[in-house]
């Protein structure tokens, strides 16, 4: 099929043709309303994480608690409402802690780590996967057997075991463990892509023009491998946040302090609050924040899958 927009794109495009292409992608994405909504939500989350505006006064009580060694009275926290100012909109949790700023602080922690995990996992996976897919042979065998091993244990169990083996003492250890677990996914995807792409005629044409194998991998394969990886990556932002929070929720690693702002941890705290005094909001709101993010990321990923599909772009 001819590109329906062929006539329109006939306009001069000497300047920044690549930028135009990205703009085109964004435009397509914008047309898919659900995906656009997902994208906006994800952007808002990241904006919160990057701007990092949490007034210290809201977290003061909990800092005090840590400094004092933890000896505050236990009492029924406030419910959600606007009467005490915006910080208390979702109510309080243990030790007078306003939930809303607590969640905002947690988003920063969660998103930073998640992006780091997914990014490094994708980097390792794409490089290894593409190269092994292109060259095949023993390298391919070895890489694929290693990924097989990783896929033979359920992710969460493997994460538990690796964190245990690492004797995790900080959140960063969880990050390392998750990177170790996450790269095989990308290696598999990019290997599959590389396998089908390497027989594409443009790679052969390039070889016939004297392009070396590694050049083929980096110039021709990687950019084309990236679009399915991008889809997986966006979906994984959701699952990694989930797994990360789950691991903290399970709570066997020795956190530096028990009140570290992290969504899973907030839910743990909230749960005890809930079972003790029925503070349902302490569980509900952090849960909703987590849930909305995962949904948004999934919507975005599904939209990306459609948009990056070359069949649709033609």
């Amino acid at each position, binding site marked *: *099929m*001819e590109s*329906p*927009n*062929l*006539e329109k794109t006939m306009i001069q495009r000497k300047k920044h043709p690549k930028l135009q292409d990205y703009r085109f992608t964004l435009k397509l994405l914008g*047309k898919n309303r659900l995906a656009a909504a997902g994208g906006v939500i994800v952007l808002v989350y990241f904006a919160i994480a990057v701007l990092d505006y949490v007034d210290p006064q809201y977290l003061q009580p909990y800092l005090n608690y840590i400094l004092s060694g933890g000896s505050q009275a236990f009492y029924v926290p406030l419910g959600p409402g606007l009467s005490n100012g915006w910080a208390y909109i979702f109510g309080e949790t243990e030790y007078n802690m306003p939930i809303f700023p607590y969640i905002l602080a947690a988003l920063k922690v969660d998103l930073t780590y998640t992006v780091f995990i997914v990014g490094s996992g994708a980097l390792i996976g794409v490089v290894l996967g593409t190269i092994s897919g292109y060259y095949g042979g023993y390298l391919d065998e070895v890489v694929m057997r290693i990924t097989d091993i990783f896929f033979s244990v359920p992710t969460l169990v493997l994460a538990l075991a690796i964190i245990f083996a690492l004797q995790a003492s900080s959140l960063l250890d969880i990050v390392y463990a998750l990177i170790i677990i996450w790269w095989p996914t990308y290696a598999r995807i990019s290997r599959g892509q590389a396998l089908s792409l390497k027989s594409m005629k443009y790679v052969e044409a390039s070889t016939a023009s004297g392009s070396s194998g590694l050049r083929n991998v980096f110039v021709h394969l990687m950019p084309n491998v990236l679009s399915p990886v991008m889809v997986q990556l966006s979906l994984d932002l959701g699952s990694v946040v989930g797994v990360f929070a789950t691991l903290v929720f399970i709570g066997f690693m020795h956190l530096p302090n028990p009140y570290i702002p992290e969504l899973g941890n907030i839910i743990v705290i909230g749960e005890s609050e809930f079972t003790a005094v029925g503070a349902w909001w302490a569980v509900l709101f952090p849960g909703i924040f987590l849930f909305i993010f995962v949904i948004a990321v999934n919507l975005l990923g599904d939209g990306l899958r459609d948009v990056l599909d070359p069949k649709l772009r033609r």
Partner: protein
Amino acid sequence: MIVEEENLKKIENYPYLSVEGLVTQFFTSGGIVKALDGVSFNIKKGEVMGLVGESGCGKSVTATSVMDLIPDPPGRIVKGKIIIDGFNIIGDINKLAKIKVKSEKNVIIKRNRKLIKRHNFILSKIRGRTISMIFQEPSLSLNPVMSVGKQIMEPILLHNRIEISNSIIRRETITKEQIRTFYTEALKIKDAMERRKYVNQWTNMFGVAESQDSILELFNSQASSDQIERDLENFLFGEIEGTNLRVIEKVRDYYKTQEELFKLHTTLLMAEENADSELIEKISMEIRNLQRKSNKELFGFKITYKFLRKRIDIPYVKEARRRALELLKLVNIAGAERVIDSYPHELSGGMQQRVMIAMALSSKPKILIADEPTTALDVTTQAQILELIKELKIVTGTSILFITHDLGVVAEMCDKIGIMYAGNLVEEAPVNDIFYNPKHPYTIGLLKSIPRSDVKRGDILESIPGSVPNLITPPSGCRFHPRCSFKMDICETNKPKLVELDDNKNQKVACFLFSREVESSE
């Protein structure tokens, strides 16, 4: 006598398929693709019509439209008539969905689920039975997870239930009397060919077609006539499987009501088309009565059939399998017994296409649509398939709509040819006129641009400048004018109508060079 002759003549010229002003559009996010823009043609009994054109000119859309298989969404037949064997299959097209075009990119389509259900019901009785289709890519057109035999048996089981039931019942209720009459009759026939014919007729009628050879052998053997008679009786009664005849009868009743319903619905549809309110009332009444009756009588059966379908169907499947084997042999598949149980991926492209043809012919359709049936095949395989289609055409007398971009193939296969360009039929004429006396500039260009055997090395091919236009924003007026070397002013504004030439009534051209008639646009 004279009247009868006239009738005969009418039958001779009776179009099995006639398409009138077909407009098909695809409502995509990029805009409305005007894929077909008023295509009309008809195919008579036993005629082969070729549709030729470049890719994107609407050949395949025409074929799928005729079968009403346009993927919906995004496609839709917007206007026109498709009359198959006297019945307009899209008579209710405007009622199936309401299309509101707000702008090119904003189209609201509201579907009427109930009517679509009826439409599908009617079509499922027409497709595969009166009209069937062979597709371009045999490797993609067969279900990869179903064995070839099952796929051929599927339409047989769908469309021939009543017939199969009848022959099962006849086989199961065969009497000694009947056998004796058959035996004495057969003995009287001395000519081997004649006897074969007779036995064939008889075995088919009594649903014991597979034993035809053995029976013939019995007759040929040197045994005494008493012995033969006893053998025959033993043999035929041995064939009886003790099937539950009541169930078979119920199945037959069920399919008979379906058939009746189908007929009533088609009449209803025609009445609706003619806005005959009295008839509508009457037929709707009948349909309701029939449904009520069948619900009442067949209620128990329908439930048992739902749960015990596999068991009940055993004799049917057996017969269908025999027919499938016969069909495979008809399309010259060597080792049909082996092929019938294999899966499509185990067969070569040529074999797959033969299987497709066998499927399409399973219920002896009146019209066969062949949509580029040989494009995906090698030349020597293509030659085999073309030869097969030619043979089958003679045997079955089917009309064929043959779609291809290869002018060589149409020259060989077709009686008449329609040339398509950008969703329009630009020329339609008998095969000789197209090749020796082409009129439309596009036809001429197309013929000149093919490398023919008389083009020698060093000659420059003539080619049509430019490429097929984008059908979201097709050129105004005659869609060919931007590439046409004979362009006139009128071509840019008005669309020429497909009209007969003055000196040759068989040749129709849509070009202002030959006629000033303008296509009326509403």
